[in-house]
C-alpha cells in the first residue's frame, strides 16, 4: 500500500466510524428516558446524586459497576437492603468489629440521607440488561453436615454480613434501635427466630426491623442456630 492510500484509509475510516457512533448516540438518547424512568427522576433524586458527588462516595463504591472497588456496589442496594436499614446504616455506618473494613462516618444529615435513598431507589430501577447477574449457583456448604462450631461461625458471619449490629447489641457491642440479643436464646426458639428474620411484620406489623427474604434457607438456619445458642 502506498503512503497516500494509507492516509486516505485513515481519513475515511475515522469519518465513517465517527458518523456511525454519532448515529448510535442519538438512538441511545432516544431510548434512555424509558430505560431509566426519567419521569421518576425528581429533584429529590437529583439532589441525592449531588450528595453522592459531594462526599465522593464513588471513589470507594462502584455504582452501575463503575468507581472504586473498595466497597460494595450500590446499583441494587435499595432493593437488597431496604429503606429502614439504609437509614440506620447511613446515619452511622461504622462497625464495632475492629477487623472489619470500615466506611467512615461522614456525619450525613437526615435530609442528605433521605435524598441519597431517593437516588438509590431511582438507580435500582434502571434497566441494566440484567446486571449484576443472578449467581449461577448459590454457595452451599458441600459434603458432610457441618460441625456445630462451623455452623455457629457461619451464623455469626450472616449476622455480621447483614449488619444486624446496626440495631442490636451482643455482648455490649452494636446499636440501640432493637433489643439486646446477648441472651436471646433463653426466651426464643429457632423456629420463632426464623419466622422473625424472614418476615418480622408477621409478628409485629409495625416493627422497624427489616425483612431478610434474600437469605437462603441454609443461612437462616445457621443464623438462628447462632442466636438460639446465645444464652
Amino acid at each position, binding site marked *: *500500500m502506498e503512503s497516500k492510500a494509507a492516509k486516505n484509509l485513515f481519513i475515511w475510516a475515522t469519518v465513517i466510524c465517527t458518523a456511525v457512533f454519532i448515529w448510535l448516540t442519538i438512538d441511545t438518547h432516544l431510548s434512555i428516558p424509558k430505560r431509566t424512568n426519567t419521569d421518576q427522576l425528581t429533584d429529590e433524586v437529583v439532589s441525592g446524586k449531588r450528595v453522592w458527588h459531594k462526599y465522593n462516595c464513588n471513589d*470507594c463504591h462502584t455504582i452501575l459497576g463503575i468507581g472504586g*472497588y473498595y466497597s460494595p456496589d450500590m446499583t441494587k442496594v435499595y432493593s437488597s437492603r431496604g429503606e429502614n436499614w439504609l437509614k440506620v446504616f447511613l446515619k452511622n455506618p461504622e462497625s464495632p468489629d475492629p477487623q472489619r473494613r470500615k466506611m467512615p462516618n461522614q456525619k450525613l444529615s437526615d435530609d442528605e440521607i433521605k435524598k441519597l435513598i431517593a437516588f438509590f431507589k431511582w438507580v435500582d430501577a434502571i434497566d441494566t440488561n440484567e446486571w449484576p447477574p443472578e449467581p449461577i449457583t448459590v454457595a452451599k456448604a458441600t459434603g458432610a453436615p457441618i460441625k456445630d462450631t462451623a455452623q455457629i461461625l457461619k451464623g455469626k458471619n450472616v449476622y455480621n454480613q447483614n449488619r444486624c449490629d446496626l440495631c442490636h447489641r451482643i455482648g455490649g457491642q452494636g446499636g440501640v434501635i432493637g433489643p439486646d440479643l446477648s441472651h436471646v436464646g433463653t426466651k426464643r426458639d429457632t423456629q420463632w427466630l426464623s419466622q422473625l428474620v424472614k418476615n418480622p411484620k408477621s409478628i409485629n406489623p409495625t416493627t422497624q426491623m427489616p425483612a431478610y427474604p434474600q437469605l437462603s434457607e441454609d443461612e437462616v438456619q445457621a443464623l438462628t442456630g447462632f442466636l438460639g445458642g446465645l444464652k
Partner: protein
Amino acid sequence: MTYESQKVAIKYFVISAVFFGLQSLVGLLLILKYIWPDPLISILPFNTARAIHTNLLVVWMLFGFMGGTYYVVPEESKTELYSKKLADLQFYLLLIGGLVGVIGFLFGWTAGRPLLELPVELKWAVVIVALIFIFNVFMTMLKTKKWTAVQGLLLGGLAMLAAMWLFAIPFFKNLTFDYYYWWWVIHLWVEGAWELIAASLMAFILLKITGVERQVVEKWLYIEVGLVLASGIIGTGHHYYWIGTPGYWLWWGGIFSALETVPIVLMVFDTLRHVKHRKIEIPDRLVLYWTIGCALFHFFGAAVMGMVHTLPQVNRWTHGTQVTASHGHLAFFGAYAMLILTVIYYALPKLKGLTQFNQKRGFWVFWITVSMMLTIGLAFGVAGVIQSYMQRGLGIDFLTVQGFMKPWFIAVFIAGLGFFAGVILYVIDVLSLAMKKS
C-alpha cells in the same frame, strides 16, 4: 538536539518523573487499606487517596506528553518553537493547577466523579492550559515547509484530547448519561487520542534510531492510527453494556472493541520490523530496550488483558471487579508509562548534549519496573478472578470475599514496594541527568 527552544522540555520531564514517584507512593497507601483496617480513615480515606493516585497519574502523563511534544515538534518542523514564553507559562499553570487539585482533594474539594474528580473551576483551568499548549504547537507547525504525518497526527491527537475533555465538565442529572459521557473522556482518551499521541511520538523515535525511510514509517503510522480510531470509537460500546444503555451495544461494543487488538498487534510487528531492517546502527541500547519493551507491554496490558474481559459474556461477571484494576494497571503502564519513559530516556541526554552517559541505572529501572508491574497486574488479576467467581458467581457477600482475596493484595503490596524502589531509581536518574552540566 538542534533547536535551543527544545530545552523547555527538560522541566516537563522532571515534574513528570517526580509526580510518577508520588503517584506510586499513594498506590502503596491504597493497597495497604485493602489489607489492614485503615488507621488513616479520618484523615486520608480510601476515596481521597484514590483520587490523588489517579489524578497524579493523569497529570504526570500530561507533563510527559507535553514535554515530548515540545521536544519533537521543533525538530519535525525544522524551526524554533513559536513561543518559549508561552511554553513556560503553560508549564507553571499546569503545575499549580495540579498541586491545587491534589491539596483540594485533601480538604474535600471534589466533583466526586471517579477519575474526573477535579472541581469544575480547575477543569476550566485545564482547558486554558490545553488551549495555550495547542496554540503554541500549532503556530510552530505553521512555520514548517512540509507537513509530516508525525506532526499532523500528533496535533490531531492533542486536539482530540482537548475536545473530549469538554465532556468532563457538565453536571448530568441522569446517572446513565453521566457515565455515557464519562467514557467519552476516559475511553476516547486512552483508546483514541492518547494512542495517536503515543504512536506519533514512537514513530519519531523509530525514525531517528533506526534510520528507516520516513515514507515507510509514516505509512504504517497512518494504518495503525486509522485502525485505532476505526475500532476504538465505536469500541466505546464495551462500556455501555450495563449502565442503562440499549442492548445493541453488546454487539457493537463487543465486536468493535475486539478489533481494537488489531492495531496494537501491528504496532509490535512494525517496531520489530523497523529495528530489524534498520539503516543505521543503534548504539543506544537503553532506548532500544524501552522501545521494544513498550511495544510488547502495550500489547500485553491493553490488547491481551483488554480482550480477556471485553466480550459481554465475560464482562458480565468481571465488570467492576479487581479484574478491571489488573487491566487498568497493565495497560496504563505498558501503553503510556513506558512510552513516556522511552521518550525521556531518548530526549533528555540529547537535551543535555550528552553523547554518552552511564546507562546502568536505566537498565535497572527497566527490569525492576517491568517485572514488578507484571506481578502487580497478575496479582490484581487473580484477586479479580476470585472475586468474580465467589461474589458474582456464587453470590457470596462482598466483604467475605475480600477476605479470600487478601493474600493477593499482600502480593500487590510487596511487588508495589519493589516497583516503588524502581521508580525512585528512575527519579534519581532523571534528576541527575537534568542537573548535569552540558
